[in-house]
């Protein structure tokens, strides 16, 4: 199994400084940071669909944006095909941007309401000097076809499309520069139920056709189960558990993962699953306490959880959970690679 490692994220953190003014920095009560992403590590292999799940506020969107350097990381590194993208100059970064794209959650907000579909898709060509005039228009029409829209859609404005069509437009724009890697930030959450399937299908087809690698972010776990090869569960800026889709959904180990999955309602009244309820509410990511992030709500919490960060427990070469109080597991994945 020597698949190429496409994206490697190492100890990535993104903190937002809450102290807004200069004076507050001097006279304030000390540091106040929103630690949206607090040290995450993972590797995304070429061609796979890598899932990042968690509740709102867990930092998944922030993580995704930091990975493609839409936000500057506070510390840590992101390697794209071995290149540390945070050390690149603006020029070099602009070139790399062609390989890393994103599809946003809200199809309406991410499209310029004053531009036609044609202009929206052609703009990346303009920015990078790839094509112009007739050549650009030709490419635009091809892209429209790729995402299931018709040529006459090219001269419409975003508000003249339905939600699903707008998302297709967003996908077409992301494909314009022929990227290798696309972040899908909750691509169907804002869409009507009946439309989701079509968009998901499109996303899968495009992946096969163009050999794309996806980072798929969602809070809808049932979608993630269908789509993702690998799944990472995030909570308050850290990864709680990571593994293949089967490992996470069938043999999950972490108490948070268990609670999360048990809470998903099943469209079958005969299967009323036993839900694991967590006490309390999600704490704020501002200056979190030391130790495990999950300590305030965990059913298995003990003293050590409040002091030390949880160790990694490996259940297979790909399946790892970070917890003090669960059984089994090895200290490193090496054990399984023999």
């Amino acid at each position, binding site marked *: 199994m020597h698949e190429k490692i496409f994206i490697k994220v190492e100890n990535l953190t993104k903190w937002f400084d809450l102290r807004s003014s200069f004076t507050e920095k001097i006279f304030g009560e000390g540091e106040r940071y929103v630690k949206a992403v607090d040290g995450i590590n993972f590797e995304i292999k070429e061609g796979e669909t890598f899932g990042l799940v968690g509740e709102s506020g867990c930092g998944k969107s922030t993580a995704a944006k930091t990975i493609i350097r839409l936000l500057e990381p506070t510390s840590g590194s992101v390697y794209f095909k071995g290149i540390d993208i945070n050390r690149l100059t603006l020029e070099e970064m602009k070139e790399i941007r062609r390989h890393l794209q994103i599809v946003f959650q809200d199809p309406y907000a991410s499209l310029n309401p004053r531009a036609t579909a044609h202009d929206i898709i052609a703009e990346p060509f303009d920015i990078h000097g790839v094509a112009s005039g007739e050549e650009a228009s030709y490419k635009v029409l091809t892209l429209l076809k790729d995402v299931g829209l018709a040529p006459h859609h090219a001269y419409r404005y975003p508000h003249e499309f339905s939600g699903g069509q707008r998302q297709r437009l967003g996908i077409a*724009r992301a494909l314009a520069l022929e990227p290798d890697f696309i972040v899908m930030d909750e691509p169907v959450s804002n869409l009507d139920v009946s439309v989701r399937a079509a968009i998901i299908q499109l996303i899968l087809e495009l992946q096969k056709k163009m050999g794309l690698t996806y980072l798929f972010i969602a809070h809808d776990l049932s979608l993630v189960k269908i789509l993702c090869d690998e799944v990472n569960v995030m909570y308050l800026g850290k990864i709680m558990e990571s593994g293949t889709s089967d490992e996470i959904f069938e043999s999950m180990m972490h108490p948070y993962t268990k609670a999360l999955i048990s809470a998903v309602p099943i469209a079958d009244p005969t299967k009323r699953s036993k839900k694991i309820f967590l006490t309390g509410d999600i704490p704020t990511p501002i200056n979190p306490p030391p130790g495990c992030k999950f300590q305030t709500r965990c059913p298995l919490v003990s003293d050590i959880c409040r002091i030390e960060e949880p160790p990694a427990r490996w259940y297979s070469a790909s399946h790892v959970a970070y917890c003090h109080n669960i059984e089994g597991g090895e200290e490193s994945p090496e054990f399984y690679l023999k």
Partner: protein
Amino acid sequence: MGIRIRWENFVKLYKLAPFSAKGNFLVGLFFVSLLVIFVLFGPYIVPYNPLTMSDSELVPPSLEHFMGTDVLGRDLFSRMVVGTRYSLGASFFATLIGLIIGLLLGSSSGFFGGKLDRLLVLLMDSLYVFPNFILMLIMAIVLGQGIWQSALAIAIGGIPGRFRMIRSLTISVKERGFIEAERVLGASNWHIIRYHITPYYLSVLFVQLSLGMARGSLSLAGLGFLGLGIPPPTPDWGAELNAGRPFYLSGHWWLVIFPGIFVLIAMIGFNLLSEGLDTIMNPTMRRLH
């Protein structure tokens, strides 16, 4: 891809506008057009040379002199019409300068934020707190009498307000989702400002321009009234008002009323035009799906 002012869009918006907005727009347009005609053709259409003094001093309005004559025997009507050129001209110049500077400062401040922003906001807010007219007055006193000086004074008075408006507009557009998308595509700051933020400025430009003219006319008249502003013998509405003031109580009403009417026409015309334009171009009614 660029900024194109599409006339079809305007016509479309115009048709959708409520009746009152259209009315405002058209009435305003009428008045403003009248004034523009005066500006362009003033000297050619007036019966008398505005500077020619005569012996028929302080003559009330008659067939010979529509608006009477002033204390030096100059035909008031001719002076008013030709004066439009200077009064409106100064206003226009003032408004334009104020807008441009406000735009430059406001957009940089809004877009780049940081220390520059904080500094500018501090500066502008301090100026903004000053009663606007007092500010202009001080500038006019500092700069002295004269058409360019007055225009500059009025321009400076208008900068803080414009700065604020452009800055908040910039910030609100900057935060919108599609700007983020542009960054991912690799667009530079310059590209984003030029192609994506500027269109929003354009849509407020026309309204701000006409609104500024209204304000400017009034301010200029005020300055002229106080003896600053445009120096004699150049005809200027405010100066005429000032000159006519001592004669008002002795029954020579036309010296004050007619300049006042011109200022009024300018004010009403530009205000209505800008209101109508604003309502037409920025439809806030939500379309029912």
